[in-house]
């Protein structure tokens, strides 16, 4: 079975130029933050934003060039004590804190492969792209589980 058969096509996606503030507003009714795909004008997947990226966005020492320096204190500064200017929300753009080195699957990959990737990187979701890199949708562990139960006749509706 291929990824495209259980893919969720209707997902919230954002452009690089979206501000942090607008991104947060987009998800204000969510309790958890999903994996958000970032696309360019032609719908080509260029990055993803995870909860960790959002948290890091509030912590200046973790954004940008410092991200990869070893031994830099990895403990998070207490988010509640950080002095954050209220303008920050409009100044920081998705482009500044999104993950460029993300993992994705192609729509014709097998489900086994997709699950293996999610397991290996402990991710609950993966963006799905076509050959040209265009975003097709997302696939989640729960979609996969539902499919497995459906396949075996446990879930019939």
């Amino acid at each position, binding site marked *: 079975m291929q990824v495209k058969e259980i893919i969720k096509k209707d997902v919230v996606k954002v452009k690089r130029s979206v501000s*942090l*503030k607008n991104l947060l507003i987009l*998800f204000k009714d969510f309790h958890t933050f999903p994996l958000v795909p970032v696309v360019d004008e032609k719908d080509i997947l260029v990055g993803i934003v995870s909860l960790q990226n959002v948290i890091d966005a509030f912590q200046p020492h973790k954004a940008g060039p410092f991200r990869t320096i070893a031994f830099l204190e990895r403990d998070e500064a207490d988010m509640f004590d950080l002095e954050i200017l209220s303008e*920050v929300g409009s100044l920081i753009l998705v482009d500044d804190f999104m993950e460029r080195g993300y993992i994705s699957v192609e729509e014709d990959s097998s489900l086994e492969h997709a699950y293996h990737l999610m397991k290996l990187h402990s991710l609950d979701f993966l963006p799905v792209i076509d050959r040209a890199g265009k975003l097709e949708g997302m696939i*989640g562990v*729960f979609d996969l589980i539902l499919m*497995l139960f459906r396949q*075996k006749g446990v879930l019939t509706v």
Partner: protein
Amino acid sequence: MQVKEAMKKDVIKVKRSTSLKNLLILFKDFHALPLIPVIAENEQLVGVVSLDNLVEILKSQESKLFRNIIFAEVDEDIFDLERVPSMGELILVDDMMSANFISLKEDTPLEKAYSIMRLHNKDQLPVVDKANKFLGIIGIFDIIWNMVKEKGIA
């Protein structure tokens, strides 16, 4: 600010006796499985069901037995297991829920709740009152959203 002010109260709950099939039907249109509280009489919280518990069911009997055994080389193949339709009725929430779980008291400050969630790598936790009565679920993004609002960012 306390947890009870930011939590979500209106969540789907299940009982110990709910079957796997009925649980799946409840969530069949979800794309991501939320944390499901398991409630006894008097709204007491007795367990939680998460995505991990569902993945567990799909694993073979052996790999469950060997979870804690060293050098067992359990490879976690959930595609291989032979499943029968009747397992939908046979497996109950009681068989798969985590009875040993973390919960937050309603008056926990959000700061504290946030650090507990980060430490244990959880993005949702159940909230209870002093008598362990279930009140709601708090998600990590609920906390972040509240902080953001307080600081006037959004």
